C-alpha cells in the first residue's frame, strides 16, 4: 500500500461570463435584507458555447500542460463528477480525456450523486493510489456542473426561482497521486451519512425540482451525523480543535453558516459571539470563490478548499476538515493536511484573476440567455452553436486557448480551442 495519497494539483475554471447577484435580486423583487443572508456576490452563467465538457477541460488543461510527457502518461484514470450529464451512456470523461490528449491505458467513467459526486470521485481516486496496484500512477478527477433550468418552460422558471440567485456553473480539476502537494489525505479519517430523501433532484435535463427547506434540514442532519461517524473512527477527534480551517459544500454561504452554528451549539453549547468568530476565522476563507461563481455542485467543497488556500494565513502544515453533501442523499466528513507550499501552488493558478476576466452580463443579456434560443439541448442530434449570442462575452475568450463548443453532428459534440 502507498503511504500517502491526495491532491497533487488543483485548478478552478469559473467560465466566461458572470452576473451580479444583487442586481438579479433587485430585478426579481427579492427582499434585500434577506439577500444579505445568502453571502453571495456574483454567479457564473454558462454561455451557448460552454457545456460541462468545456468547463471540465478548461479547468484541467493547465494542470495537464504543466506535467512532463512521462508524468502525463501516468494519468491512468479520468473520473468526471457531475449532475449535468450530456448522455445516458457516454460519459463526459471520454471527451475530457480526448481533448487533454491523454494516453489510452486509462479508466474513463463518470460519477453521479448530486453535489456529493466530487468527494465520491476523489475517494475513488485516492483509494486507487493507496491500493498501489499501479505504483506511481495518477488520477484526474474533474467536477463539472452548470445549471440551465429555466430552459424548459415558464413553470420551470417558477420551480427554479428559489435557487436562481445561488445556482452557478464551474469546474474544479484535481490531480490525485502519491505526491499530494495540495492536500495530503488523512487515510482512514472519514465519516459518512446517507439516507433516501426527496429534497432536490434533476428529473429532466433542463429542470430542477425540490424543496429548499427539506434540503437544508437533510444537510444539517448529515453534517452532525457525518461528524459523529468521523469522531467514532478517529481517536481524539475534536471539531473545535482538530482543524485549523474548514470547507463545507456551499449551496450558498448562509447555509454553511447555519450548519456550522448548529454543530457548534450541539457539540459545545457555544455562545453566538464565539460561533460567529469561529465561522469567520475557520470557514470565512472557504467562501472566497463560491460567492463569485455560485453553487458549483460536485466541485463546491473543492472550490472552498481553493478559496481557503488562496486567502487564509497558512504559515505551517495544518489540518483541514471537509464536509460534502449531495441531495438524495449522501454525505461525508473527511480531512487532510495542507502546507504553505499548497498555498503557493494554488495562488500560482491565478484563479481570482480568471474570475476577474469574466464578462459581466447585464440583466437583459442574462434574460436573453435564459430563453436559451441558441443552446444545444440534451438529446439533440444536429446543431450549430451561434457563439456570439453575447458578443462581448465571446470576445473575452478569443486568444485565451480555451475549449469552446462548436456543434453537434449526429449526437457527437464538436469542439475547438480558440
Amino acid at each position, binding site marked *: 500500500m502507498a503511504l500517502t495519497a491526495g491532491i497533487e494539483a488543483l485548478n478552478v475554471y469559473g467560465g466566461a461570463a458572470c452576473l451580479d447577484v444583487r442586481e438579479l435580486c433587485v430585478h426579481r423583487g427579492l*427582499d434585500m435584507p*434577506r439577500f444579505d*443572508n445568502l453571502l453571495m456576490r456574483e454567479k457564473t452563467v454558462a454561455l451557448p458555447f460552454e457545456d460541462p465538457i468545456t468547463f471540465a477541460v478548461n479547468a484541467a488543461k493547465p494542470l495537464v500542460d504543466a506535467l512532463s510527457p512521462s508524468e502525463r502518461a501516468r494519468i491512468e484514470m479520468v473520473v468526471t463528477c457531475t449532475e449535468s450529464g450530456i448522455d445516458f451512456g457516454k460519459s463526459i470523461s471520454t471527451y475530457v480525456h480526448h481533448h487533454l490528449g491523454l494516453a489510452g491505458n486509462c479508466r474513463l467513467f463518470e460519477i453521479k450523486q448530486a453535489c456529493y459526486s466530487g468527494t465520491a470521485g476523489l475517494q475513488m481516486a485516492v483509494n486507487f493510489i493507496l491500493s498501489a496496484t499501479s505504483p506511481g500512477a495518477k488520477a484526474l478527477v474533474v467536477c463539472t456542473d452548470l445549471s440551465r433550468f429555466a430552459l424548459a418552460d415558464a413553470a420551470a422558471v417558477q420551480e427554479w426561482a428559489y435557487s436562481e440567485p445561488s445556482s452557478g456553473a464551474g469546474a474544479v480539476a484535481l490531480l490525485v497521486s502519491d505526491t499530494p502537494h495540495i492536500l495530503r489525505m488523512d487515510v482512514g479519517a472519514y465519516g459518512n451519512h446517507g439516507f433516501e*430523501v426527496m429534497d432536490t433532484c434533476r428529473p429532466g435535463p433542463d429542470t430542477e425540482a425540490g*424543496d*429548499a*427547506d*427539506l434540503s*437544508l*434540514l*437533510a444537510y*444539517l*442532519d448529515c453534517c452532525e451525523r457525518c461528524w459523529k461517524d468521523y469522531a467514532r473512527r478517529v481517536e481524539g477527534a475534536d471539531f473545535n480543535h482538530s482543524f485549523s480551517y474548514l470547507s463545507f459544500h456551499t449551496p450558498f454561504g*448562509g*447555509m454553511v*453558516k*447555519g450548519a456550522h*452554528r*448548529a454543530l457548534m*451549539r*450541539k457539540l459545545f453549547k457555544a455562545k453566538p459571539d464565539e460561533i460567529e468568530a469561529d465561522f469567520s476565522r475557520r470557514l470565512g476563507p472557504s467562501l472566497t470563490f463560491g460567492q463569485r461563481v455560485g453553487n458549483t455542485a460536485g466541485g463546491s467543497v473543492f472550490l472552498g478548499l481553493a478559496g481557503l488556500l488562496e486567502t487564509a494565513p497558512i504559515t505551517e502544515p495544518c489540518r483541514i476538515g471537509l464536509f460534502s453533501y449531495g441531495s438524495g442523499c449522501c454525505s461525508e466528513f473527511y480531512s487532510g493536511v495542507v502546507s504553505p507550499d499548497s498555498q503557493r501552488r494554488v495562488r500560482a493558478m491565478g484563479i481570482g484573476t480568471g474570475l476577474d476576466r469574466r464578462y459581466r452580463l447585464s440583466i437583459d443579456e442574462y434574460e436573453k440567455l435564459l430563453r436559451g434560443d441558441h443552446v444545444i439541448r440534451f438529446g439533440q442530434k444536429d446543431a450549430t452553436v451561434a457563439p456570439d449570442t453575447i458578443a462581448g462575452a465571446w470576445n473575452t475568450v478569443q486568444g485565451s486557448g480555451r475549449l469552446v463548443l462548436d456543434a453537434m453532428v449526429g449526437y457527437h459534440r464538436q469542439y475547438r480551442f480558440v
Partner: protein
Amino acid sequence: MESDDILSILIGQIREVVPELVDHDIGAADSMAALGVDSVERSEVLMNTLEILGLDLPMVQLHGPRNLGELALLLKAKCGGA
C-alpha cells in the same frame, strides 16, 4: 406538554431568532415562511425548540407542517403525546 405550550415555545424562538418580529402578532395559523423567516432561520427555530423540549431526532422528521399549529401538534406527537 400541550400543543399550546409547544406553540408558545415556537413563537418565543421565532422572536428570538428574528428580533424584527418581537412585536408582531403570531398565531397557530401563521407559517414561518409567510412571516418572512428565511430557511436558515427556520431551521434554527426548529433546532432551538427541539433543544428546549429535550428531543434529539433527525430534523427531516419535522418537515411537512404548513403552519405553526400543525408543527406544534407534530412536536407534541414526537414528545410522546404527553
